[in-house]
């Protein structure tokens, strides 16, 4: 895990400019490097899965496959949102999954110079999910790492999740 993060970090340091897709959840602006995004599915209503772990946002149909989605709201301890949400289809080492967000914004080009790692006062839970942040002109763009959001890693019943958490 640590190698993955530092690799990501290094990559961002080396390339001066990074393209990041911005998404909004609650009041925070999050960012995901666009190379991890396969597709954006607008206003979807995932089918809930009974008995599934809480972070599972449900199932969506995506190009002939059935995708498991992860609710970012649940992971951030935000109350669930009624109505349709946007889904980012992400690719991680374990395969594809969907990330449920309130809305998808524009693609921003940010400079590696503006990057800073997680602050030390961030709580355990968020530190496990977030990578760092880019300082925008008037706000922060909080970076997410698809590897850390992979449902297989989030599952508390699986041993690999222990390391992730």
């Amino acid at each position, binding site marked *: 895990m640590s190698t993955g993060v530092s690799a990501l970090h290094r990559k961002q340091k080396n390339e001066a400019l990074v393209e990041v897709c911005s998404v909004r959840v609650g009041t925070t602006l999050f960012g995901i490097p666009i190379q991890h995004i396969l597709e954006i599915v607008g206003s979807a209503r995932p*089918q809930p899965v009974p008995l*599934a772990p809480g972070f599972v946002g449900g199932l969506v*149909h995506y190009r002939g496959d*059935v995708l498991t989605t992860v609710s970012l709201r649940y992971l951030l301890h935000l109350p669930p949102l009624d109505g349709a949400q946007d889904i980012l289809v992400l690719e991680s080492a*374990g395969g594809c999954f969907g990330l449920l967000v309130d809305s998808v914004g524009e693609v921003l080009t940010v400079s590696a110079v503006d990057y800073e790692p997680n602050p030390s006062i961030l709580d355990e839970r968020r530190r496990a999910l977030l990578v760092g942040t880019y300082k925008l002109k008037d706000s922060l763009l909080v970076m997410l790492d698809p590897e850390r959001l992979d449902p297989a890693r989030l599952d508390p019943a*699986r041993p690999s999740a222990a390391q992730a958490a």
Partner: protein
Amino acid sequence: MDDLTREFLIESQEGLDRMERCLTELEERPQDTGLLAEIFRSVHTIKGTTGFLGFKRLEKLAHAGENLLGLLRDGKMTASAAVITVLLHLLDGLRALLKTIEAEGGEGDGDDAALIARLEELQAPSQHAKARNAGAVHQARQDTAVKAAELVAAPGATADSAAPPEQVAAEPTRAAAAPSTAVKIPAPEPAEAAADAATLTPAEAARARAQGTATESTLRVDVALLNRMMNLVGELVLTRNQVLQATAADPNMTLLSRRLDMVTADLRESVMKARMQPVSNVFSKMPRMVRDLTHVLGRRVRLQMEGQETELDKSLLEAIKDPLTHAVRNALDHGIEPPAKREAAGKDPEGILILRAVQEGSHVVIEVSDDGAGMAVEKIRSKAIERGLLSTERAAQLGERDLLQLVFVPGFSTAAEVTNVSGRGVGMDVVRTNVEKIGGKVEIDSRLGKGTTLRMRIPLTLAIIPALIVRSISQSFALPQGALSELVHIPPERAATAIEWMEGAPLYRLRGRLLPLVFLDRLLMPGRECKLFTDRDNFIAVLDADGRRFGLVVDSLADPEEIVVKPLSTVLKDIGMFSGATVLGNADLALILDPGSIAIKTGVTMSNEEESAQAVEEESESEAARMRYLLVEVAGRQAAVPLADVLRIEQLPFSRIEYIGCRPVLNFEGQLLPVEDSGGILAATEGNPEAQIVVVVCRDGNRHVGIAVSHVLDVASGGNLFEAGTGARTEGVTLLKDRVTGVVDLGGVPPLPAIEGAPEGWHETAEALG
């Protein structure tokens, strides 16, 4: 590894597979030059390419083999059992080397000198080698045969060199097929051997030729690509459904959407077909295995294989490889007795092992049967009690067939000793686990002293399964039809009293027996109350998952649907309740329920199975004589159609029926189907083009015929009836559900008149008439 080497490895593997098949066939027909040429070609190709790629060790070994094969091909030697054994070793040697190259990129530094020496020794034209050769073929060989063999081995011999070549060729064939050949595998009785060889050879040769040309018109496709295509087709089917719904009201679009509908269906079928492979791909590995095992175990076995052309989805074929191997091992080790023992029991010292594949509807049944010792039910009973699997009382109650199924329990082995082939009690467990993993079922049937039959029912494709869509907690769920035995409807007025409670456990009295109930809504949303609706209909799906019988209470039932199974992510698989997900025709997602896991989760055990035991007993009585029939009603009478011949059941408007002369026909996807109307159903419906009629489409030999029926009633097993006095089996009637029922004579349906008359001009005729 570079592309060239990779391609070489794939090609060589295929060549060696071919070689293996040919070698085992060669044992039956050592004179078949076609087979020898094929084997020679495989080895030659490897040798040629290796020299080019620089694999010296492989080249040397292949070269030694090629020399020997060259002599065989040119008729300078006969392919005796000893020669074939060495050739099989050569095959193993080549395979091992290829494997090393694949794994390490190099040949490693082993030594093949011993093998090469043996290959060379056989080629030595010395008297010594010849004698060894002939001796090894078989001691029991007749003198003439030996002479013939020698003659072939040394064509320069003066004495009999004038003998006509046909005679020379024929003699050793017969000799090798004689029943005393211990290593021989699939060969019929000696009397038929010559005739068989004669009839088989051209057919086999034709097949080989067909395969040869097939390679030119086919190409290798990555299975992942096929999977992707299958997914996309699934997607297309869905889009089509939505287009059809959206355009239903628009008359301008009807034609277009219907065309889209047809093309999509065709495409789906083609992609599925592309994934199908003949069972022979797996069966062909068996002769070699049987040959080797019979040597190790000291058995004499004749292997018969039937239905090799039956096709199965590639992934399923892959999945049955292991279970089949285990089943064959078991049959050889525990089933078929050593020759001496067989003779003592008054049996043919040579045992028979039959592998049979046959398609039955949406399943393929694969049987492994032997005529060996069978299993002692009493031994299983006592073993089960000893191992604590059953209480003494329970064991006493269980029927023979149920006891037999215990051999599938992990670690259960009745073998007195553990051999290195089998007997550790792992085999049967593996068979069941693997077969059930792919949605199949295993059954075992055994008669002490007569033999054992293992039956595996495998679904045709893994990707598409028939399922019933049920609803609960306002969601749709798919319930695989395979586990569904019946549906019980409880109207609102009976809801209050239908369920009986035993200390908090809900039970339903089904035909006098208590069926444990599982409420789906409560299972999925813990904390809900278990009760039936008194204001609307309730439904219980009676499920049978590996002998665990229970009733699943659902809110409502929707239509049955053929669903495309999509895998779930591991997080959701871990819930242990769903086996997958699917997209329904209305674009909704539905989770696929896994009845087996639900049974385990809710604690339903195998204990409540007296009922199924009883049913099974009923079924097992005169099992061999029983056949499955589709029970239909034709104008008030019941009639039976053999289920194996039924292709599909069509419900269609009467307007689809057309007439050639006075013969009703159905234009089915461009093909004309004669429709039999013995019950006068069509005649009665005439003049009402809107009326729906039911046509059972059946197979009769190569042609298809339709039978017009009033209703389809059921599927049932029929028993034979015997004429009083003579005891002769009656034809054309069967006993179905205790009623004597007539069997529809498919052969009696007259062919289309136009086809009989003028095949060339029949298109015009049909047009003119229709």
